[in-house]
């Protein structure tokens, strides 16, 4: 006999979408239970961007790539707090032109910028979103220098970090990431939400006017009986759960991400240090299609990036402080598909990039390399196996006009759009406020409902929409 939990609202998933949903509804007086498949770890349980973090917080160890050519490693979290516990903390509001696209093509109602401002502001306040009050990491400053020399638009992106008043040497400000476990999760608990980690939701079933979440906890069956369900498992696991529950219309057919190519840059001066802080400088000259920025550049990640260049004469342990990784990403297409596989817990993800996508990535990579040379880089190692080292602008012609599918290393940490919202029900999965078409009191409230790739770090959009939708639900009920 399965253990049973009863509540008014079950929130499945505790990442940015789930945590905001749970806190918002609990604060409104709803009896909320938030389920999370992964463990509840303290924010400082492991060093950020370390292999210990991969072991403890990454779903499938970070090894469930999207099948396509090339394969793209997808990074998903599986722990309380979700992606907010492992990402860079960079914050953007949804660009107005993206909102306009979603309104016009997907018929999303009440989605003008004024409709979202209060939600952006509430989340920004809760997360202490701010610019770095101290000195940016040197690698970030290089990006700024390069962009300014080329006359390109560049911004410092705010992050959801709380900074200490004290400064380290060189005016570097130490910050604490304001992830969900630092902010919305404890706030939800304080408002009365019950958080249940280590629970995997297997299926959703309608029982009369209520829903039942069939789940498993440490091998034992668990049932959650609830009036409403918010599915917030992320852009891959949300459609996977809905499809296991035989809810399939426009579910898992339009996964999008930001295909990203990286470059290792070597400078004469030291730009990298022991801190795993990521630079917040981004180049927006080619937005919305292309964005460039700084990537994790710890020694292990540098070594990983250099595996595309095994013949390179680089003494990693001796030179890594002069090296940093930068990325160029494009706003990707909605061609990804998420499907469950018999006898497997993990869904299979397929996607395709067009020849035009690969040409746009090539142009983005060339421009990134130009910027880095302008910033003073002496050697560049793009993520293309077999490409010789680039030592000056004259070498940029060595980058293929269309990135080679079989030799390019792409990655992404941004996943969305697998259950797009909107009133255009021919190709949307949920309505303007996240209710699954044809299923009363069943909602999606995470990155899945973003209609297309937003072209910016998505967490700000996810959280604002989650708050908007949760408040809309609370008024309707």
């Amino acid at each position, binding site marked *: 006999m399965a253990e049973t939990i009863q509540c008014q609202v079950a929130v499945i998933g505790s990442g940015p979408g789930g945590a905001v949903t749970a806190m918002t509804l609990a604060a409104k007086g709803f009896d909320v239970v938030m389920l999370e498949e992964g463990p509840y770890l303290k924010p400082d349980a492991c060093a950020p961007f370390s*292999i210990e973090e991969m072991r403890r917080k990454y779903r499938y160890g970070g090894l469930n790539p999207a099948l396509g050519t090339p394969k793209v490693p997808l990074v998903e979290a599986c722990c309380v707090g979700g992606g907010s516990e492992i990402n860079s903390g960079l914050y953007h509001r949804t660009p107005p032109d993206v909102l306009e696209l979603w309104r016009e093509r997907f018929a999303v109602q009440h989605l003008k910028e004024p409709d979202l401002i209060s939600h952006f502001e509430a989340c920004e306040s809760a997360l202490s979103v701010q610019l770095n009050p101290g000195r940016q990491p040197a690698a970030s400053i290089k990006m700024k220098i390069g962009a300014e020399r080329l006359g390109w638009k560049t911004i410092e992106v705010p992050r959801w970090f709380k900074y200490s008043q004290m400064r380290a040497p060189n005016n570097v400000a130490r910050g604490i990431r304001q992830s969900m476990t630092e902010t919305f999760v404890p706030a939800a608990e304080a408002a009365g939400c019950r958080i249940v980690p280590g629970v995997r939701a297997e299926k959703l079933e309608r029982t009369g006017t209520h829903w039942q979440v069939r789940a498993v906890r440490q091998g034992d069956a668990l049932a959650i009986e609830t009036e409403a369900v918010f599915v917030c498992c992320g852009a891959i696991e949300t459609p996977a759960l809905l499809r296991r529950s035989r809810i399939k219309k426009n579910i898992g057919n339009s996964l999008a991400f930001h295909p990203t190519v990286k470059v290792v840059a070597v400078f004469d001066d030291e730009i990298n240090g022991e801190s795993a802080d990521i630079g917040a400088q981004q180049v927006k000259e080619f937005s919305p299609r292309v964005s460039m920025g700084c990537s994790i550049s710890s020694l*292990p990640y540098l070594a990983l990036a250099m595996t595309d260049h095994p013949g390179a004469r680089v003494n990693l342990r001796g030179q890594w402080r002069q090296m940093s990784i930068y990325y160029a990403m494009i706003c990707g297409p909605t061609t990804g598909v998420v499907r469950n596989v018999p006898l497997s817990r993990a869904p299979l993800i397929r996607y395709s990039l067009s020849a035009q996508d690969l040409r746009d990535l090539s142009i983005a990579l060339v421009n990134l390399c130009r910027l880095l040379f302008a910033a003073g880089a002496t050697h560049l190692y793009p993520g293309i196996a077999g490409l010789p080292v680039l030592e000056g602008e004259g070498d940029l012609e060595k980058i293929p006009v269309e990135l080679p599918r079989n030799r390019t290393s792409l990655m992404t940490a941004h996943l969305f759009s697998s259950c797009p919202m909107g009133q255009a029900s021919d190709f949307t999965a949920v309505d303007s406020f996240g209710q699954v078409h044809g299923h009363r009191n069943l909602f999606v409230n995470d990155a899945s409902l973003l209609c297309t790739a937003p072209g910016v770090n998505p967490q700000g959009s996810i959280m604002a929409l989650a708050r908007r939708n949760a408040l809309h639900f609370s008024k309707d009920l």
Partner: protein
Amino acid sequence: MTSVSSGREAMSYLSKTISTLCCDIASMHDHSDPIGADASYDDVTEFVVEQLRKMPVFFSRPILLATAVFGVSRLLLEGSLFHNRPPHRRCLQVENWRRSRFATSRDLIKFYTSLVVLALYSRPATSARRMEGDG
């Protein structure tokens, strides 16, 4: 009993292949100890095996199958399994598969290399003192 012992032998063979392959890739990338005195890579192998266990089964099984093929390839020419060959012959095979015109071969080596390198360079810089001494 026969199928059980065959299964155990197969796992033992696979474990030895993975362990030897990880150690070879690690030593090819480990410039912190050129003398090779500190050549234990058990922690690296352990990380790789742990990651393999976490992977979706529809990825891990083909990788293990490819690894098994890797281990027996050139058996007729070399007269021994991969893990029983001398180091320089093993490194040659790794390099040949890395450069192969077959994507499956390249992907296999890339998979192991990525994990090995991550684990190797995540080690505390105990060898850094030796590097500083080298100047």
